[in-house]
């Protein structure tokens, strides 16, 4: 059945709403769908897109490049072998990968504390117990670092001044010669974008 245009009013031609960067783009969504369907070729693509998030979270959490590399390998192998358990309807693929990453980081620390206890028992000496950072906050920081990088100007400059240099919005407005209301709404939109990135890709919170 072909319709030659009857009833197609102008709304059909108008595309609305420009997607913001925290929303997965079409290519991200296609990779996530293909991943769920088990297309072999897509693992490499998922790896290319999201391994920096996994690796850097692991590196910041465990402090050793070799251990971070092992965790990254374990995450992608586990994800690929368990891909039938990933449901694109329920969450983003990077979010699922970050959930696995948190678990692997926690496993790493469990393992380390077992080793430390063993060493304690053998040497009966004072052993420096490694400090375990909260995996959640590490993953969140890496996601936010990624999203902050994606902010365009003037948002990036405004966020820099408001978040990291502690200027008030009035000071920023006068420094950048922008209306106060504009500065406020840029800050609000940027913060909202950061919040949503954590919601979408933060995994289990």
């Amino acid at each position, binding site marked *: 059945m072909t*319709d*030659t245009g009857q009833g197609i009013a102008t709304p059909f031609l108008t595309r609305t709403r420009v997607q913001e960067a925290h929303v997965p783009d079409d290519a991200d969504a296609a990779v996530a769908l293909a991943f769920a369907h088990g297309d*072999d070729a897509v693992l490499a693509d998922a790896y290319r897109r999201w391994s920096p998030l996994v690796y850097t979270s692991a590196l910041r959490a465990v402090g050793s490049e070799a251990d*971070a*590399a092992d965790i990254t390998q374990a995450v992608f192998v586990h994800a690929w072998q368990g891909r039938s358990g990933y449901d694109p309807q329920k969450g983003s693929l990077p979010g699922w990968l970050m959930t696995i990453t948190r678990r692997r980081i926690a496993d790493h620390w469990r393992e380390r504390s077992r080793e430390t206890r063993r060493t304690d028992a053998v040497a009966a000496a004072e052993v420096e117990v490694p400090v375990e950072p909260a995996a959640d*906050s590490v993953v969140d920081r890496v996601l936010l670092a990624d999203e902050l990088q994606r902010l365009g100007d003037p948002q990036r400059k405004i966020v820099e001044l408001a978040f990291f240099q502690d200027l008030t919005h009035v000071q920023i407005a006068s420094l950048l010669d922008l209306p106060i*209301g504009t500065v406020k709404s840029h800050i609000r939109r940027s913060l909202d974008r950061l919040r949503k990135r954590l919601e979408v890709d933060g995994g289990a919170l």
Partner: protein
Amino acid sequence: MVVHCDDDDLTIIALGEPASATDEAHLQGCPRCRSRLDQLAAVVATSRAVRDEDTPVAPPAAVWDAISEELGLESDATVTSLDSRRRRRRSVGWMVAAASVAGVLVGSLATVVVTDSPSTSPAIVASAGLDPLDGATVSGTAVVEEDSTGTVLRVSLPELPDVPDGYYEVWMATSDASTMVAIGTLDPRGETVLRLPSGMPVGDFPLVDVSVEHFDGDAGHSAQSLVRGLLQA
């Protein structure tokens, strides 16, 4: 009527600036605004804890090699862009550029042959993000898949409300929307897989559209579109 705090103002307060007397008083008595403020303040706190070292860096190349070996992937499975792999795999290109004219679109998916994969799992030929149109709030995806039995369109949208006295219909259209093909009705409860008519020059119809239709005997498009997206390889 309760006037809640303005979101712009809550953001500024979350950053540590003093609240106005009005906002201060309102926040005392409004759990909703307080919880929103706490949520924003938590994001501010985590953002301020971000260090340069938190910026994502790619793992060493050896990590991919180890994964590839552990999973027994083909030796040539290197980390390349999905697009270039896909393009190699198809005998007919699916070249859709935004705002391209319909005349440029000459790919016929009916003749697509997957040349270098013995797998019988469906190959994703093209996909589109379905974005909400005026007034709609839902979004989803549409994927064209090719397997040994033919071509299907897989439409994924979140659960949709039932249409009183009506239904949702999936359309594919030329990029200028001058010609549309009704593909089938959409199951409002999740994913719908629709088989495309054999012989349909799918490459000529890159726009996927979901409309709200009524049992009114009119076979044409109602002009009430819910979501729409442009298929891309």
